[in-house]
């Protein structure tokens, strides 16, 4: 009993819980098995630990997790973007700009991601 209570409490605190809001419309039916869907558990986990490491200032570890994830999904523009952010924080402006450009090359029509990448490229320019 106590344990379940704690689960609910903690679940409520988890900021990036993949669970949809109770009021939200029912989630779409699960996507049929694709290699991508199967890898996503691993990618989600690595992204999460990279974010936690980055937040705690463990930038080398964060970059390590992102590189691992990129080995599984080399065409995932979010991963390249996250790695660009880590490099920028590490003071490697040139790499940050190149990684952001790499992210753009896979970003397709994701305007938000493109502008976030552009942002990194411009920041990198001012640092240099």
């Amino acid at each position: 009993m106590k344990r379940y209570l704690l689960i609910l409490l903690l679940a409520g605190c988890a900021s990036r819980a993949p669970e949809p809001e109770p009021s939200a419309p029912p989630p779409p039916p699960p996507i049929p098995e694709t290699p991508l869907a199967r890898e996503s558990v691993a990618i989600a986990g690595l992204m999460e630990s990279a974010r936690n490491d980055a937040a705690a200032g463990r930038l080398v570890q964060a970059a390590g997790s992102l590189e691992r994830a990129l080995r599984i999904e080399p065409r995932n523009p979010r991963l390249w973007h996250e790695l660009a952010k880590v490099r920028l924080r590490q003071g490697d402006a040139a790499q940050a700009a190149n990684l952001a450009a790499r992210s753009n090359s896979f970003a397709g029509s994701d305007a938000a991601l493109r502008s976030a990448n552009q942002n990194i490229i411009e920041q990198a320019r001012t640092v240099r």
Partner: protein
Amino acid sequence: MRSATGRTEGGSTITQQLVKNFFLTPERTLRRKFTELVMAVLLEMHYGKEEILETYLNEIYLGQDRDRAIHGVGLAAQFYFGKEVRHLSIAESALLVAMVKGPAVYDPRRHATRALDRRNLVLHEAKEQGSITLEQYSLARAMPLGVVPKPETGTTPYPAFVQLVQRQLRRDYDDKDLRSEGLRIFTALDPRVQNAAEHALATRLAQFDREKRFGPPGMEGSVVVADPQSGEIQALVSGRDPRYRGFNRAVDAARPVGSLLKPVVYLTALQEPAKYTLVTPIDDGPFVWKSRGAPDWEPQNYDKKFHGMVPLRTALAQSYNAATARLGTDIGVEKVLDNVRRLGIERPLKPFASTLLGAVELSPLEVAQMYQTMASGGFKTPLRAIREVTTQEGKPLARYALRVEQAIAPEPAYLITAAMQGVVREGTAQGLKGMLPPETNIAGKTGTTDDQRDAWFAGFTGDRLAVVWVGYDDNRAARLSGAASALPVWGDLMAALQPEPLELAKPENIETVLIDPQSGLRADMSCPGALEIPFAAGSTPAGRAPCASELGVTVQEVKQKAKSWLDRLFGR
């Protein structure tokens, strides 16, 4: 199979174990246990049981190869049976399941009887639950363990790869640091890829030797396989005897590259979209290059013929020498060489016109670097044999980080890749067609040098880049073209790995239109044999082909366009 999916030590569910393996560190605290539980619940809400089980199977600990932990059924299948998971028999699969409970206790190499008993217990359970039939059960039960011998300690089965690792380490660390204990080196070597490469090369070389009857020493060869996105070197074969610890042809044998350099000439042209597109007519008439103090240079074509005006993409696909020499000298040899450097070749190259046709000596590894940059949309990633170096305690040293550099703009990189796909679809590398599914959309280039002393093939799929060289160490003429010798090795190797199709990320400024191959003008669906060709924005041909004239365009207009095209063509 309850024995595989049931509860184990500490009362964790599979999902919790997965969380533990994957997301968290192995410390044991109460807080951690709770976090684990929460993550497990979230995971189960978000992902299906099957996905979780699958991920679990890919992460589970199944044994120890000296300092290397064997995680996941894929690695375990290789480690214990020397094969891929999908090729495992029921008995072999049951043995892996049996080992989940304790890979050391049930190690089939050290405790064969115990392992066999437990395997048979698993088989029994499987039969009881109806996962296998009685017949399958009896057959599997009668099978031996089928475990392959463990590789010897102290020697590496991959001396060529290890040599490269040592060299990269020595470049970055003092010998003293390397000798003193403490560094842990994680390499990018993929044994499955390495084995496929070794096997493909050895088999084909033996076949060529039989056909040639030149006598010993036989033909030699080398192979480099890398991941085009990460730049990680997955396999390196230095010769027909991959266990030989001597001369490393893949790294140290610089040989003339022949036509492997041609894509760089065409890439340089495509960087000027106002002047050159994939359909721009190029002159493959006789060509003479005069320079002071040197004899005239008159490159011949491989078929000893000249082909007149041909579309740029065809000149590359058919590897026409006269057209390439004319194009390269028009653009400027220096400009082409500048691109060779940008693509990652560090050794100085002579600024001669003959360099354009590959009178340049490069190692297979250098060629792989050059093609890696093209294969990843113009982003150069230095090829690395080492993934990570950590201290004894596992603290990463950030020396071998993934680095990318935008060396070539995305548009010309996209166009040259499309042109290299044409080499396989309709050019000199059509031999690959029978070896791999057409939807793989391979991009590549054959290379053959004077008197066929060196035969090359360099190419890439969606997930792998490979370079193959074949020839004689004593520089004898092999009398085999790149298409006849290096290409089959490449094809065998890739076919064994079932590569992902090459799907290029299309840059924003690229548009694809239908083109009539005869006229090089815009076509529509009514044009027979019309091809989809990509263009840099603004460089798409304006004129419509005669076959497309019913699109509301007058015949007069078409004639006008055709005339101006002809004028441009012959006015140059």
